[in-house]
């Protein structure tokens, strides 16, 4: 029993490694790396498509969380552990929660109809344009030459995975200190701006009047016309009025 299981295991192992070799060619990544990559890639792509095709905005936000988690795994695979943590804390923890908060606040958490588009040509054109963007970026990525003349440069960051946070911190607080301080100002401005934007609608000062339609709507159809044409269901009253008009004439 056990030898049979063992041989079965080796065959499976060999099959996976064979497939692996076909996909990656000579530069063979380790099996855990590639399995993690493909699982995370599927999560990212399914999450991205889920954001676009969900009818309910709440479902879109939840698919967005899945996609962001997949991206965080991609960051971890590339030794960017600090960015992976920030990705989950800031994106999943703050931005998506803000999205959900606004969806609930506005009460738009209902499924909407996305079956047909008002502009018929828009959807095929949009997909065509998206495919163009995909093809263009892939072409650019695979045909561009590095300045060193090499076709591509791949390798692990020097110093191993533990050193990465230290390097990032040193870079942020030395070379990139001025942009870092500028982000503090940017965040303050954003918060003040958001408060101002949402407060202004409540307080209407003397100078700012709420929006009014310039002309009130007028029915271009003359009175009684609809009933004469049989367009109104309860036409009795209007018919009486029309008869009176005829009597007067």
């Amino acid at each position: 029993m056990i030898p049979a299981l063992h041989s079965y295991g080796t065959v499976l192992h060999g099959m996976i490694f064979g497939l692996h070799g076909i996909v990656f060619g000579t530069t063979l990544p380790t099996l855990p790396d590639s399995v993690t990559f493909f699982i995370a890639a599927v999560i990212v792509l399914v999450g991205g498509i889920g954001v676009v095709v969900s009818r309910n905005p709440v479902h879109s936000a939840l698919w967005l969380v899945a996609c962001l988690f997949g991206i965080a795994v991609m960051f971890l695979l590339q030794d960017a552990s600090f960015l992976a943590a920030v990705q989950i804390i800031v994106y999943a923890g703050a931005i998506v929660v803000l999205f959900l908060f606004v969806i609930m606040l506005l009460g738009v958490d209902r499924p909407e109809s996305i079956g047909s588009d008002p502009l018929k040509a828009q959807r095929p054109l949009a997909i065509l344009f998206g495919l163009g963007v995909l093809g263009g970026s892939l072409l650019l990525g695979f045909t561009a030459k590095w300045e060193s003349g090499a076709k591509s440069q791949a390798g692990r960051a020097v110093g191993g995975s533990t050193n990465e946070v230290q390097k990032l911190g040193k870079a942020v607080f030395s070379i990139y200190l001025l942009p870092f301080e500028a982000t503090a100002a940017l965040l303050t401005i954003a918060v003040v701006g958001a408060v101002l934007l949402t407060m202004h609608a409540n307080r209407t000062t003397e100078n700012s009047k709420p929006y009014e339609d310039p002309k009130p709507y007028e029915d271009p159809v003359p009175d009684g016309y609809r009933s004469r044409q049989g367009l109104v269901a309860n036409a009795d009253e209007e018919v009486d009025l029309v008869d009176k008009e005829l009597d007067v004439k």
Partner: protein
Amino acid sequence: MSIPGSWYLTLAALLFSIGVVGILVRRNVLIMFMCIELMLNAANLTLVTYARMLNDIGGQVLVFFVLVVAAAEVVVGLGVIVSIFRRAKSTTADDLHILKG
């Protein structure tokens, strides 16, 4: 060996295209915003990949700044959406034709 960088770049291109199609197809402003987030994340993945491939920490620093700018953008954008919703009573982009000059 770790995963070749071209795989990450291909994935980022796919995610970016999904974001582009989403922003062109959907009419709900909130979902259009989420598609912008998808595109920002695709760009972030590209930056991290190049930071690894070129062994330069500057790419990761740039991702850090993109995260901050994305947070600020979402805060202001959702504020705009809330104040639009108070006036137009919907979050559909088609209903904003009063912005037409």
